[in-house]
């Protein structure tokens, strides 16, 4: 057997028991690699459970900076006896297994390096309290890993000190536990192993944060003052992030009172109802939810579209339909959001690729909602929402001003000849509104989900109804120029094939393009960042023979949207799909695209290329 030899480029997977306190130790491990200047991307694969079921934490170390999931395991830290056999099976040939050999395991593979550390024994000798034995065991294995992978102990000590800044008493105990594992390993096992961390400078000024927290921060910077939400995985930490940043940044100095209202609603219907009530009344308001919540909100979303009320919805997508896989990732709400509610509707969607864009789009969504007077969806997913990710630092331009859109003040109303709430005086489909209570005699109107004329008066006149529906389309056209534009990246020599992707698929796609290029397959790519689609999207499709649409759902939802909105010949858009609930990998994209291109070469030219699914 040849043991794997890799520096700064491997995957470590931790198999733990949910609720055993492993999460913070695993995060500590990932951070220690980042502090050594080596990019590392963790992903938490957790069950819909609080305590007892298996959970995994994958850390992809990649000096080249690949943040996508890679698949496979080079070093397994097997801490869960329930899944031990399967975990060992999953190790790549030549890889490594670290396990607690207090109770020796039998029948281990011979094509891997087995590293036994008596973690339970070490902890039982050192600690008498059962909870301490459990918690410190996690830190002990981080210490063992530092010896095996050559991670500088000082880096870990520093991180422990930062983590327990508020509870200083805990610092020496944790440092001691780390050294307990490290010292035993140094004395008893050959260190370091073939997988190694070598100090580098590839992290730069990047920050490490989860997308949900970043989006919550974006809402603070975007001026949101009302958050109404109902707890649902994987969106809960977005509302919690907003609460945390509100506490930090929105306390009124003189009184300590809060410049925001956060209400945990009784359900998602009430949550979106509160958002719409607040948006109608001139506050920037949002809710945060996931697929089942989007389903519940449909009627209200139609009201907000038709009555034209600014509202922001963060949808942290998870695997559907129905309850689906609540703790697994997918991009499966694209259609449900784009055309949410009965009747003819279309909604603005934003697709952030990482926490940096979760922040940026999280703030921008409020400007768009106010400007366009309509619901705006920020489409995260579990993969970017709930995992810490290395990304460009947040940036804010202090000269930037909130765009509150076309709102008339009392002075404006006095100066205006006439006020018609739904009268398109500028030709862009966007009309003027007033906040309730603005003027004693002018500018009041009745908001309703029923059809009405330009002065907001109830009508069932078909011509007036249709005129208004056409205007809403015009407004959607206006939106195209306001939403984030797509990002195109062409192969140096240009390419016959293109690939369209969005959201959390980005890092896997970036890596796939590199691999395909090495294999001699050139690919132009376009990352879509918003719906309605910018004209550049249609241009991109027109300029390529075939375009792969890479996404994480079964039904190729973005492709459907492209076909529908762009009137594109479906044969020209090839599906590359991944939807088993795990994040998409470069390996999968490469395999699907390479296969499709090689198949296409033997197919007569007149026939459309076959559709590709995975």
């Amino acid at each position: 057997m040849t043991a794997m030899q890799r520096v700064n480029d491997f995957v470590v997977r931790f198999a733990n028991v949910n609720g055993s306190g492993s999460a913070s130790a695993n995060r500590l491990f990932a951070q220690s690699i980042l502090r050594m200047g080596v990019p590392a991307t963790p992903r938490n694969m957790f069950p819909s459970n609080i305590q007892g079921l298996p959970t995994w934490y994958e850390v992809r170390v990649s000096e080249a900076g690949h943040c996508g999931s890679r698949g496979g395991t080079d070093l397994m830290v097997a801490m869960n006896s329930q899944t031990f056999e399967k975990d060992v099976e999953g190790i790549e040939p030549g890889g490594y297994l670290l396990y607690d050999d207090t109770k020796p395991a039998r029948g281990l593979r011979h094509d891997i390096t087995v590293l036994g550390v008596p973690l339970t024994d070490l902890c039982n000798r050192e600690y008498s309290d059962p909870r301490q034995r459990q918690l410190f065991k996690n830190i002990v294995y981080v210490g063992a890993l530092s010896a095996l992978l050559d991670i500088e102990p000082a880096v870990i000590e520093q991180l422990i000190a930062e983590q327990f800044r508020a509870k200083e008493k805990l610092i020496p105990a944790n440092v001691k536990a780390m050294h307990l594992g490290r010292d035993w390993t140094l004395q008893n096992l050959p260190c370091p192993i073939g997988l190694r961390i070598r100090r580098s400078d590839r992290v730069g000024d990047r920050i490490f944060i989860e997308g949900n927290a970043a989006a919550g921060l974006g809402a603070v910077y975007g001026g949101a003052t009302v958050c109404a939400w109902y707890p649902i995985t994987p969106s809960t930490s977005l509302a919690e992030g907003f609460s945390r940043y509100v506490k930090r940044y929105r306390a009124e100095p003189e009184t300590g009172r809060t410049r925001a209202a956060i209400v945990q609603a009784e359900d998602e219907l009430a949550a979106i109802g509160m958002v719409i009530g607040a948006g109608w009344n001139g506050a920037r308001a949002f809710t945060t939810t996931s697929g089942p919540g989007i389903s519940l909100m449909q009627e209200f979303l139609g009201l907000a579209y038709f009555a034209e009320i600014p509202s922001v919805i963060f949808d942290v997508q998870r695997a559907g339909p129905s309850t689906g896989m609540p703790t697994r990732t997918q991009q499966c709400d694209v259609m449900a959001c784009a055309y949410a509610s009965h009747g003819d509707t279309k909604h603005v969607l934003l697709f952030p690729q990482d926490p940096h864009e979760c922040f940026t789009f999280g703030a921008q969504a409020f400007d768009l909602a106010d400007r366009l007077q309509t619901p705006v969806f920020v489409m995260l997913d579990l993969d970017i929402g709930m995992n810490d990710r290395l990304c460009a630092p947040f940036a804010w331009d202090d000269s930037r001003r909130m765009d509150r859109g076309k709102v008339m003040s009392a002075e404006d109303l006095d100066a205006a000849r006439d006020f018609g709430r739904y009268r398109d005086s500028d030709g862009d489909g966007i009309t003027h509104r007033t906040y309730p209570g603005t003027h004693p005699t002018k500018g009041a109107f009745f908001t309703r989900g029923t059809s009405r004329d330009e002065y907001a008066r109830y009508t069932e006149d078909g011509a007036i109804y249709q005129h208004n529906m056409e205007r809403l389309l015009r407004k959607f056209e206006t939106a195209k120029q306001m939403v984030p534009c797509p990002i195109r990246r062409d192969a140096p020599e240009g390419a016959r094939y293109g690939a369209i992707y969005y959201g959390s698929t980005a890092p896997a796609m970036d890596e796939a393009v590199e691999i395909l290029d090495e294999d001699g397959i050139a690919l132009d790519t376009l990352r879509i960042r918003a719906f309605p689609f910018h004209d550049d999207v249609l241009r991109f499709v027109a300029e390529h023979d075939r375009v792969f649409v890479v996404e994480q759902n079964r039904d190729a939802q973005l492709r459907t949207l492209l076909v529908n909105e762009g009137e594109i010949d479906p044969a020209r858009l090839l599906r590359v799909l991944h939807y088993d609930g795990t994040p998409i990998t470069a390996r999968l994209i490469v395999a699907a695209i390479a296969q499709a291109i090689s198949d296409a070469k033997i197919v007569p030219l007149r026939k459309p290329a076959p559709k590709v699914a995975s």
Partner: protein
Amino acid sequence: MTFLPKPTLHHPDLPTNALGLTRRDYEGAVSTLCAGCGHDSISAAILRAVFELDIPPHRVAKMSGIGCSSKTPTYFLGTAHGFNSVHGRMPSVATGANLANRDLIYLGVSGDGDSASIGLGQFAHAMRRGVNMTYIVENNGVYGLTKGQFSATSDKGATSKKGVANADSAIDLVGLALQLGATFVGRSFSGDKTQLVPLIKAALRHKGAAFIDCISPCVQFNNHVGSTKSFDYVREHNEAVNMLDFISGREEIVTDYEPGSVEIVAQHDGTLLKLRKLAADYDPHDRVSALGYLQTHSARGEIVTGLLYVDLDAEDLHDHLGTVATPLNALTEAELCPGSAALAKLNASLR
């Protein structure tokens, strides 16, 4: 409904309120409800209450759901913004609106279908959160716009216009409101303006969730023999526990009552409630005994009306959340956005 437009001319001698406005300034569009509908009487009572309280009409936000009752906000306070939202969801929209601007007066108008059937959950949560609003249910025990189906407040055994008996138990919104923590609860009858107008005035001046269940007979579908929400039935079974006079600060209190039979209580904003006791054993400050009293009398087939409960020290949702005094929709950019310096500091902590 009438098709005749209202004349725009005002009588020169129309009385004015402290703002110099006449009652005509508090009117809305012409009602499209059936002639004789109880809801129109409630609209008139609301109009009178707001006028007499000297509230500028544009400082009221009119919130409603879907149904006959929910249409009525168009028919009063024409210079106020209104929001006719979706069926059963007025409470959440009103809650959000209230969060955005705590300085306006929120008047929710709903029906028994809207609040007791499809919207029972939202009704309950608005009450328990203490949203500072007046929540009026125009309760006729029937679905009017869809032509005569029973609603959830129809009494068990009551018969429909077609003679079918209702087999389901009735939901008592007053009982629910009390149990859920509403801090002002009243019941009245659309046909009794002397009772209703002061109740609405007191509710509008109450800080917290103020609920009024107003029986409002449906002349089309629920005003027949066998109905327990008809004009005749309600008149016969109405048992008022007290008579309320609402006194704003500028009026003089005249002592024209027997000692012990009248209680005068001050609300937070300085207004006074003068309560003349009709039922000697009824105490509107005791939530628990109020619930017992209501159930006992309801079992006898009586409809207990009046100011049923008031908590003068009530808090509202903003108090619970600790929000600033400035309306959230009026906060400035500087107060909302922490800026680039704070962000740089935060970035540094995330490395």
